[in-house]
């Protein structure tokens, strides 16, 4: 047991270290911006005095190391600084959007994960059958189609032609859960299809790999029923590869959110990010990136830890 705890602790520490380095990179990114931040906020024809004042106010005259620590401290308290374009507090901008993005991603994940795992396992068990081929072709198609194509096809079909769902998901905090879910269906669907194919293929590959192991053949030679072979023999060894697949796909999902939010004008962090990039509002971009990077690193960390915790060799060391 101790070995596992130590391994997990090591991995967690590594995760935290990674996060710190990532935050450093994001911070340095802003530092590399040519020109002066304060100047950028006030504009070209601001007076030098005003610029100097703003610099002092924003703490830009402090040494970089200090500023990094201040910024990091601020972030841990929920203070992300100010937008360059509007001067507003970023935390007020980002806060509600984080919830929206998580809602959208969660909605998509809730549909995609069980569906993909189920289809993947079935495709692996019945590989080279008609079912498998159809599923594979479908997956191939979905992977090759760019996200925005998918979104527009969905809009064209379900919104314009059939008129069921709205093509723009303008949700706000005061909507009921049902209403919110209804307006989120199209973007969630687009996300789901994009991630489903990817996850399903990886699951199929992992399970096929597993089913080729000698102990699976041994189980069949012992006369175990096909159900028993899958449930008793394959699944307990499938945790690690499946967790890996799910985590990678969720990470994929987090990034796919960006394009989808833009097309459906969904008020999430992704849309804010893209708008800010266009306006070169670096501080907002920095904060949005931090959110995405954090989620990504956390998901990978959880995946690794779960993989360690379900490894029989580590659970029962020599």
């Amino acid at each position, binding site marked *: 047991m101790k070995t596992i705890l130590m391994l997990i602790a090591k991995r967690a520490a590594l995760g935290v270290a990674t996060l710190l380095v990532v935050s450093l990179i994001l911070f340095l990114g802003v530092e590399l911006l040519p020109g002066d931040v304060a100047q950028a906020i006030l504009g070209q024809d601001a007076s030098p005095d005003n610029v100097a004042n703003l610099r002092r106010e924003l703490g830009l005259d402090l040494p970089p190391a200090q500023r990094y620590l201040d910024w990091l401290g601020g972030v841990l308290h929920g203070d992300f600084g100010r937008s360059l374009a509007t001067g507003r507090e970023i935390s007020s901008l980002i806060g509600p959007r984080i919830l929206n993005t998580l809602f959208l991603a969660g909605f998509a994940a809730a549909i995609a994960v069980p569906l993909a795992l189920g289809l993947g396992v079935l495709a692996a068990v019945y590989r080279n059958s008609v079912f498998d081929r159809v599923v594979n072709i479908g997956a191939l198609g979905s992977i090759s189609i760019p996200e925005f194509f998918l979104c527009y096809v969905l809009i064209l079909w379900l919104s314009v032609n059939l008129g069921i769902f709205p093509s723009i998901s303008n949700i706000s905090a005061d909507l009921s859960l049902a209403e919110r879910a209804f307006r989120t269906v199209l973007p969630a669907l687009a996300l789901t299809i994009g991630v489903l194919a990817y996850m399903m293929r990886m699951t199929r590959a992992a399970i096929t790999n597993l089913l080729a192991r000698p102990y699976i053949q041994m189980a069949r030679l012992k006369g175990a029923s096909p159900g028993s072979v899958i449930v008793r023999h394959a699944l307990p*060894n499938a945790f690690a590869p499946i967790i890996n697949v799910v985590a990678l796909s969720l990470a994929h999902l987090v990034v796919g959110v960006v394009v989808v939010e833009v097309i459906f004008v969904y008020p999430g962090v992704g849309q804010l990010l893209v708008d800010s990039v266009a306006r070169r509002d670096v501080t907002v971009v920095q904060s949005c990136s931090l959110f995405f990077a954090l989620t990504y690193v956390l998901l990978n960390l959880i995946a690794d830890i779960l993989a360690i915790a379900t490894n029989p060799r580590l659970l029962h060391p020599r």
Partner: protein
Amino acid sequence: MNTNAGTAPLLEIAGLRVEVTTDDGPREVVHGVDLTLRRGEILGLIGESGAGKSTLGLAALGFARDGSRFSAGSIRFDGQELVGAPERQLRALRGLRVAYVAQSAAASFNPAHNLIDQYAEIPVGRGLKSRRQAQAEAQEMYRTLLLPDPGGIGYRYPHQVSGGQLQRAMIAMAMACQPELIVFDEPTTALDVTTQVEVLTAIKLIVEKFGTAALYITHDLAVVAQMADRIMVLRHGRVVEEGETRRMLSTPREAYTRDLLGLRAAARPAVPAEAGEEPLLRVDNVSAAYGGGFKILHDVSIAVGRRRTVAVVGESGSGKSSLARVITGLLPPSEGRILFDGAPLPPRMRQRSRAHLKRIQMIYQSPDTALNPRQRVNEILMRPLEFYLRLNGRERQERIDRLLEMIELDPDYGQRFPDELSGGEKQRVCIARALAAEPDLIICDEVTSALDQLVAQGILKLLQRLQDELSVSFLFITHDLVTVKAIADEIIVMQNGRVVEQGARETVLAPPHHPYTELLLSSVPQMDPDWLDRLLAARSGATG
């Protein structure tokens, strides 16, 4: 031996043909085999790789591997036809009336469950026994099979148990429902010779106690001589010969059988040491450890004379391969030194000059991975000629032709890629590659272990001939005592990183022995069917 003459056969295979689907279409691998097995009888299936023995063994369970199928013939188990039978029927038989013991226990046990749960899976799953009953029986079975800690070992996981013990646990698992037939598929091939004796004993015990019939598949005639009532020789998917064990061993009818038996024929006379000559290679008090401080060689001292074959024998963990790595400079010793031709050799390979590297060459165990699959034979042989001897153009080509001749391959082999060669041919190319450098010492690391016995015999003959023609020394690392008896001038016995005994061949092979050498020598199966019984009697007599 429990033969019940006059009863109907338990297993009857008639005219069986098995087809395998390849990229180029279906290919038949078993061409009309007939096989009969009575209750309580043990039939040994013997043959080289590709003979179809595993395929036949699996066929006894009605099982065809993925990508293969029974294209013709019949398999009857106790009167029930297995070919074309629905999967449900076959499942009812497997585990219950017919069981299988695989070659690699480590790969065949599910890493996620402990041993006793895997034992109990079938009896409990079929409703034959309760969980408690099954576990109690498992412990009893482990005791019968002489496993240590029979009460507790079942609760361990496969990766926590050693190879020989795991194999016996698999045998126990196969016996869980007391089947009428067990198929043993090379159960001891992957084990050390001393461990093999334990497992062979276990198999004999269990089969006699429960009167189970068995198909014993192996490539080792001496092993099958101990276990089987009848022997069937297979080659390329056909039956070559079949008959009662003693008759087969004393008067084999077919040439192929005689060849297989002749593997233990007379050895080449040992070359006596030349007194007073400076040895070519001297290893003085060498100790070595891998990273982490775990010592694998303790104070090892050996010497190899010129034009001599020195065999290093040991089981897994003896350190013999590590010794080779120290000599070639891949593993620097922590203590001691190595002298080559009188002068000290730099401990690390990187510190050695090309001239040094040229003089010591190595041949590896697995010819499949020892040759670059993207280089033709010509290119493989060309490189050492270019690198060490700085030959070019026509001279180089002539040398390549001569090397091919030396290893008994036609000159057009030069154009081939390794995957167009057989295992034996590949190993010959490896030998040629080593010879191309014109070395003084060639280290052979288990060079025949991965080859079929007849092919291995050919390689050994080649090496001996080469030694006579060229003045090269061999350091022959192996676990196979039979080979050692045939080719070695001197023998070095190693155990757990130490040299236990060394000297001229006759000296080491004759008593008195170091206890480990005694154990090793006595564990090598002999062609005599009573060998195992006598060994067990002798050992229990000695300890009793």
